[in-house]
């Protein structure tokens, strides 16, 4: 048996383990290879994947769920490729985001994109102006992109964000 290094103050890690991708968090040995390979960590002062995982292991549930940090992961998975213990910080933070979203903590940047996505079915509807349409026509490409704008509205109950203003 390995020695227990973390003494959690809540069952947060177990809660995350129930979300696909979150189950690996307990294997982390806090070596810091992820932080060392992370580009976001290199250019921000606050984002440190190892440290964020430590907070999860220590059971800092509210702090982690309300934090912007899990939303800064680019899911580039370089850390996952390098982690010797089979932990994927990208997957762990993905599980955190899902849990956070369920409790209504979604950063405004994501919320705004989701609104437009639900309305239009795709991300760049507001940027697709006559100018871009003409550009496509000039290139011999079909200007009618044919996006479906109904399906996402139909399934919006599946998205925690659609429930109300938070």
């Amino acid at each position, binding site marked *: 048996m390995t020695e227990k290094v973390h003494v959690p103050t809540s069952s947060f890690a177990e809660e995350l383990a129930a979300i696909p991708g979150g189950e690996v968090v307990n294997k982390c040995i806090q070596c810091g290879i992820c932080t060392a390979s992370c580009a976001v960590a290199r250019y921000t002062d606050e984002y440190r994947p190892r440290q964020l995982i430590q907070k999860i292991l220590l059971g800092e549930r509210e702090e982690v769920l309300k934090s912007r940090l899990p939303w800064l992961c680019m899911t580039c998975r370089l850390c996952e490729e390098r982690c010797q213990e089979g932990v994927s910080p990208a997957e762990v933070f993905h599980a955190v985001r899902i849990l956070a*979203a369920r409790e209504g903590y979604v950063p405004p940047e994501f919320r705004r994109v989701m609104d437009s996505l639900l309305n239009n079915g795709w991300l760049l509807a507001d940027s697709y102006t006559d100018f871009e349409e003409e550009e496509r026509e000039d290139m011999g490409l079909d200007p009618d992109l044919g996006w479906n704008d109904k399906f996402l509205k139909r*399934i919006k109950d599946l998205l925690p964000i659609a429930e109300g203003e938070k």
Partner: protein
Amino acid sequence: MREILLYRGCTTPVRLPAYELATMNVLKELGVKAIPMKDVTCCGAQFVESLSPDAFAVIGGRILALAEDEEMDILTLCGACSGSLKITKHNLDNDPGLRRKVNDTLAEEGLKYTGKTRVLHLLQILAQEIGYDEIERHIVRPYNGLKIAAHYGCHVTRPFEIVQVDDPENPTIIDRLAEIAGAEAVDYPGKTRCCGGPMLAMDTTVATKIGQEKIFNVGLVGANVILTACEFCDLQLTQCQFDEAIKPSKRIPVMPITQFLGAAMGIDEERLGFEMNRISPDSVLEALQEGR
């Protein structure tokens, strides 16, 4: 001619239509007709993906089911679209409960996911479906004395267990394709690192710095052009060079692999959309040799 459905994603048709154009024309030359998919939605990458696994599965499941209906495979240009559709396929193929839920929703439109359709990123079509030898036969104006730096795109190659494109720590497809076209592929520090694109949603300053680090590393080894296989990476690695940290004279051209190959295959420049490139591709095109 073989046919494949092209899932264009949200960004390419609006912000980098030259990638769409060049890909369709290069594939056509190589005997593959790419037919743009319609009536689809965004694949849900990053945004829906972060919020709800069920919504993400049903969104990707619908795109896959539409392709099944046409009995065709899907070609993706974008790393994020490629990743999401492949992850969704993986989840649906391995979780019968999830598949049942998704199919209940899809049934309202008479659609059904069974798992027949494959999702192939552009690099897979080129390297695995068409093959290096066949592509080599089409090179009529090889590059001469040109150094390229390949940027693969994280979501194109990772996680390997699911996407199955190329070795994630030592990818080679773009390098080999460029060499077939006569160029010299050079390695650079941080080759498999992210372009910073996904960070644009949360912090553009950090995103720009991450992109510029790549430009700096590519410059160090003296590469003349950066080749991409994802419009997000292409746009990000271009955009980050329009910033005071990089002198205009130091900008390195960035282009999708299909534009680069197309020129060496003798396809007209306007059928590859070169006039739309923000950083002039002239220095690259000048390295093309006539005839072979």
